[in-house]
């Protein structure tokens, strides 16, 4: 066994998974997780993120590679001996048991003395603010309450880590935000380690310490939310996290981390992504909220002439759809204040932005 640093709590070492011995669902997953971290596995469905979670929990076998907790490999440990708490999208509460019995179950299995179980159940019911619901059955609770019970049940036996598989997927928008807050609060208070799987990027951005973006069985980037949003390493991450516009062009020159790009609408200056070479076809990504419509006091390095298409009133901001010279759409988000201009149909407009706000990626 390899010697692991004492601060590495959970390590995935080149973990691969195949179901049919032909196609890899997970293609070499590496990750080190510190104790107490909140890690999110984010990706479109079928990207392999849930498979990683299931291998960690022991419900899928590892085809090759190793998963270790505190330096000990767990790939040969039975799921019920791994001491890992799990929260499911459909809650998976036992419908024939009361809320209190559900919470007591992992403790009874561990043969704790009865008075201790009772005290612990009361403590955790209080923690998720459901003290008066102990005698109800899950069927008598709302979706949000059920998920709080599921959370409490996953925490009550003080597992080494807690896995959450799209736990908020079945809730409506308001409840989802409340529960995000709730999970973050519990995580801060109790300091457990979380591996969280979701396809909802806002959820990932607002809760995680680090996010691993999955696509096609490979981690595209693993970084804190702000870095992921501001400095995506490739076009997939740039497109998947938040909204993005892509302006096609060709790299004319490359100086350090700055690239000159020739597009149909004129030359642009952009940050060069890794692997970009001179003369290569590329796509310049720029976020809708980093684009400005003159008149504006913002500094700018780039300007693009576009034609007005539609203006959509969203409420807190206004979305503009412009057509680029090549006919593709470019989206601009402007805060809903008095400066949000109106355009006539097909009117010409200028879009301005900073070179540091846009990144040129190799065209795939």
């Amino acid at each position: 066994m390899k010697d692991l640093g004492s601060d590495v709590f959970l390590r995935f070492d080149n973990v691969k998974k195949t179901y049919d011995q032909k196609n890899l669902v997970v293609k070499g997953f590496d990750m080190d997780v510190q104790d107490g971290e909140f890690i999110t596995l984010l990706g479109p469905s079928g990207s392999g993120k849930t498979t990683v979670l299931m291998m960690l929990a022991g419900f899928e076998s590892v085809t090759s590679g190793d998963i270790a907790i505190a330096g000990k490999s767990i790939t040969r440990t039975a799921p019920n001996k791994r001491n890992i708490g799990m929260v499911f999208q459909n809650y998976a509460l036992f419908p024939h048991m009361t809320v209190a019995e559900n919470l007591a179950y992992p403790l009874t299995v561990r043969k704790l003395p009865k008075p201790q179980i009772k005290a612990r159940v009361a403590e955790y019911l209080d923690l998720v603010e459901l003290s008066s619901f102990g005698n109800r059955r899950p069927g008598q609770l709302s979706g949000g309450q059920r998920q709080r019970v599921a959370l409490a049940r996953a925490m009550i036996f003080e597992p080494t880590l807690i896995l959450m598989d799209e736990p908020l997927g079945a809730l409506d928008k308001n409840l989802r935000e409340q529960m995000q807050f709730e999970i973050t609060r519990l995580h801060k208070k109790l300091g457990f380690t979380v591996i969280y799987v979701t396809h909802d990027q806002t959820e990932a951005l607002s809760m995680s310490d680090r996010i691993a973006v999955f696509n096609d069985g490979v981690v595209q980037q693993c970084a804190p939310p702000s870095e992921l949003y501001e400095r995506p390493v490739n076009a997939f991450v740039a497109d998947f996290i938040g909204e993005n516009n892509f302006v096609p062009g060709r790299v004319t020159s490359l100086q350090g981390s700055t690239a000159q790009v020739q597009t149909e609408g004129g030359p642009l200056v952009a940050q060069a992504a890794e692997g970009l070479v001179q003369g290569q076809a590329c796509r310049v990504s720029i976020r809708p909220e980093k684009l400005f419509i003159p008149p504006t006091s913002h500094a700018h390095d780039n300007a693009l002439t576009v034609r007005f298409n539609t203006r959509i009133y969203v409420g807190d901001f206004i979305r503009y759809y412009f057509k680029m010279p090549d006919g593709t759409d470019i989206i601009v988000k402007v805060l809903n204040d008095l400066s949000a201009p109106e355009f006539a149909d097909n009117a010409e407009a200028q879009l301005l932005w900073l070179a540091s706000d846009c990144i040129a990626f190799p065209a795939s």
Partner: protein
Amino acid sequence: MKRFPAYYTFRHIAGHYGLRLFAFLVLIFLMLPILVIMPLSFNAEPFFTFTDGMLALDPDAYSTRWYQEFADDPNWRLAIWNSFAIGIASALIATTLGTLAAVGLSSPWMPYKRLITALLLSPMIVPLIIIAAGMFFFYTRFNLVGTYPGLIIAHAALGVPFVIITVTATLSGFDRSLFIAGLSLGARPVKVFWDVVIPLIRPGVISGGLFAFVTSFDEVVLVLFLAGPEQRTIPRQMFSGLREQINPTILAVATLLVVLSAALLFTLEALRRRSVRMGGSG
């Protein structure tokens, strides 16, 4: 007068009442033979027909003497005991084996699922007389003909398909993540099975068991082939009673069986409602 939608023509209305009449006739056809034996079983005379006194509702024309005869006759008492003993024993075996089979067959990793299901369900489809003949020749080799174990095993095999069907139906509504959740909470698979799976599929298990019991209780072909005089069951006794000594004792027995079946049916329905109320699937 019933209110029909305004667009109804005479043909619609005729169809409406015509369907009701037809459904009622079907019901009569199904129920009348069962219902008619009930008053006949209280006949004071040893006949299978309504006497003039019965039709005139004369209390003296009715009696419970055939029920008394049924209770007093040692042959019938043996038959009752046999029917319940064999029925309960074979239902217990069928329920245990059928439930385990259904759980195994519902696993996504079960190979040859269709083939095994077809084999296990075959006693329902293969003509009873063929099963009976096959078992007879098979049993002679093991000296099982004319023994209680032989009959119990044979009836259990007939009951297993019913248990598999009802338990599989309940399991199809069973959420596998509950099992995974149980394991993740630290319980061994067998413990999760007892604590979580069994309570949730219990309605299916019980109704399957009742079906298996009724199948055995009702069965006469295998009994004719495999049972000796000591294993004579109620249907077998009725069968010989019909040929040898025709008297309304058989009707009294039949009435009691109808009451028993109705009781089982109500039990099943009550179980189903209870499971629906508990939030499980029917």
